[in-house]
């Protein structure tokens, strides 16, 4: 996997983690509007980065494959073959 692709994948994983952290916090602090805004901005950036990734490198989840030119869901590398 090329460096650029790997960096984008790591960025997506980091944003996903941040979104999950806000998710857990907001479940117990639903009235915290500032946290909600930061959660929303995180998710918006996450969606953009995922869109960028799938357009350039292939599907992240199987549903993404519907917008790919062919069935590349089984293409290399498999998740456990990625060297971070």
């Amino acid at each position: 996997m090329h460096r650029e692709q790997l960096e984008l994948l790591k960025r997506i994983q980091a944003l996903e983690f941040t979104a999950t952290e806000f998710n857990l916090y907001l479940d117990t602090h639903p009235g915290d509007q500032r946290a909600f805004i930061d959660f929303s901005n995180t998710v918006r950036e996450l969606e953009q980065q995922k869109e960028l990734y799938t357009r350039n490198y292939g599907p992240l989840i199987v549903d993404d494959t519907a917008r790919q030119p062919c069935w590349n869901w089984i293409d290399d590398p498999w998740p456990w073959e990625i060297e971070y």
Partner: protein
Amino acid sequence: MNDMNPIMLRLAQAYVPFQTYVNRWDPMKALMMGTIFPELYRPYDGRDRRRD
């Protein structure tokens, strides 16, 4: 007994201070630290921390 309970919390009840969102680490740093909240970062070091 009170030296073990200096602020007179009621016995046999669990207390969790309510977290307030102040700031957070950027996503990549947070992923490495295991939390986005700096105030929650407290790696286990195996020592008795009661006197900290």
